[in-house]
């Protein structure tokens, strides 16, 4: 079942068209990978799905994005509710310079959940879901910046998990991590898939092949090809995809 339906989506930064008529459906509780060379619009596309591009001046969007059948760009759409439902993991681990505890419960507080007991339950549950609980349970008051990069990235995922989103957008979540940490985060994604729909942008082709069920290839603002990962990687329909995958690109 598709949870996200994108129809004829175009995005302009001023006069520059960064996305050209994108059409794509994202399946629920699957991992979808987006690949493509630098500057082709992967992050821009991802940021359309939780309307982060709203924060940038002079951005103009046409077409439609439906999440769970609701048009998220409709005037009456609840923006804060959308961002609660569609969470984002960024390239660099970016915990707030606050305690581990405050980081994880941040989203709960923002959404008006202030009950100590509920907060502590969710805290434990979300830290457990990213396998960080055992490591940090005795130092919840420590500043989150004292954790290692990989732990910080896990913490950022836990911070999202606490608000129980349905979709996780991950923009190169492992690019600041070493191979071992990357493998750990990939394992985690595999588990998280049971609860969430995940869309991951990655420059690492093996990663896309390893973790995802669907893959989309972006080039200069176009979605050149989209389909099941095995098909894209073994028999791409578009010669440009093949060039990119075999390293003949550019």
């Amino acid at each position, binding site marked *: 079942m598709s949870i996200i339906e994108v129809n004829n989506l175009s995005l302009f930064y001023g006069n520059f068209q960064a996305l050209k008529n994108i059409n794509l459906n994202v399946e629920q509780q699957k991992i979808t990978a987006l690949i493509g060379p630098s500057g082709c619009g992967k992050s821009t596309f991802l940021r359309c799905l*939780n309307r*982060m591009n709203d*924060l940038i001046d002079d951005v103009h969007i046409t077409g439609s994005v439906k999440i769970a059948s609701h048009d998220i760009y409709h005037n009456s759409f609840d923006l*804060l*509710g*959308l*961002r*609660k439902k569609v*969470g*984002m993991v*960024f390239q*660099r681990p*970016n915990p*707030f*310079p*606050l305690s581990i505890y405050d980081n994880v419960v*941040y*989203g709960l*507080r*923002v*959404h008006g959940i202030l009950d100590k007991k509920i907060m502590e339950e969710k805290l434990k549950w979300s830290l457990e879901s990213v396998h960080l609980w055992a490591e940090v349970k005795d130092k919840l008051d420590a500043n989150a*910046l004292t954790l290692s990069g990989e732990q910080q990235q896990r913490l*950022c995922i836990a*911070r*999202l998990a606490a*608000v129980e989103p349905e979709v996780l957008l991950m923009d190169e979540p492992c690019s600041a991590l070493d191979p071992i940490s990357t493998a750990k985060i990939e394992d985690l994604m595999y588990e998280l898939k049971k609860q969430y729909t995940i869309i991951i942008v990655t420059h690492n082709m093996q990663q896309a092949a390893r973790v995802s069920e669907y893959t989309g290839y972006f080039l200069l603002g176009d979605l050149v090809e989209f389909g099941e990962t095995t098909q894209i990687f073994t028999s791409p329909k578009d010669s440009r995809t093949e060039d990119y995958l075999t390293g003949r690109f550019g």
Partner: protein
Amino acid sequence: MYLNPKIEQRVVQAILWVFTLATVFILFFIIFYILHKGLPVLSYNFLTTNPLDMGKSGGIYSTIIGTIALTIMSLLIATPLGVGTAIYLTEYTRESRITRVIRFGSECLSGIPSIIFGLFGFILFVTKLKMGWSILSGGLTLAFMLLPTIIRTSEEAIKSVPYNLHEVSYSLGSTQWQTVTKVVLPSALPGILTGVILSVGRSVGETAAVIFTAGSALRMPTSLFSSSRTMAVHFFILAREGISMPNAYGTAAVLIITILIINIIAYRLMHKFIKKYS
């Protein structure tokens, strides 16, 4: 004129050294001189008894209380106004004519000599608004003097909070106000505090603006409408009218120690703040 680069380097270095030494020397000379003259007068009694006979004898208790009251008053007014302005300038508007006017106004305010603030406060608060010489008039006047510093340091502190923290906060579904109060302000707090503490130092040491607005009554202040004498004003009056030089130096010693401590705390905080984001 051509100089061998090596020699030039040496000459410049030597000149800069002399300047630095001179600055440090003057600082230490002042501190040493005042402590040398003032410390012998200091005692528990000096700090805890009220001045007698215009300050010829007795201690400085009421002036310490006056200083504290006036400082707290001015900060209570200046901090929310200043931090609020800084939040507005950095988070709620874009660079525009209005922000430039506000910044320009605030820069101008910081360049005005304190005696002019004193006269302004005297005319507006003391006479026009009939607050009389009082802690209230003095606090309001001082607050205007402190505003530019608090605005500028708060602005810098807020600007140094990385933009991606805003993004994360929004991506978790926060409103702008939640982002400001739960992420930006806590992260900027040490920087903001530094500005506030430096302002405490200025407040404590200010004389000209205070003497015109809070007056120089030696009585213990009893309300916001009491006139009150601060340590700085007390020192000024004792010294200028030749009432008692030893007591003047004693007061000065207390003042200088207080300001030193305040500056050290501010410096420490600043360091902590810089470490956090580098």
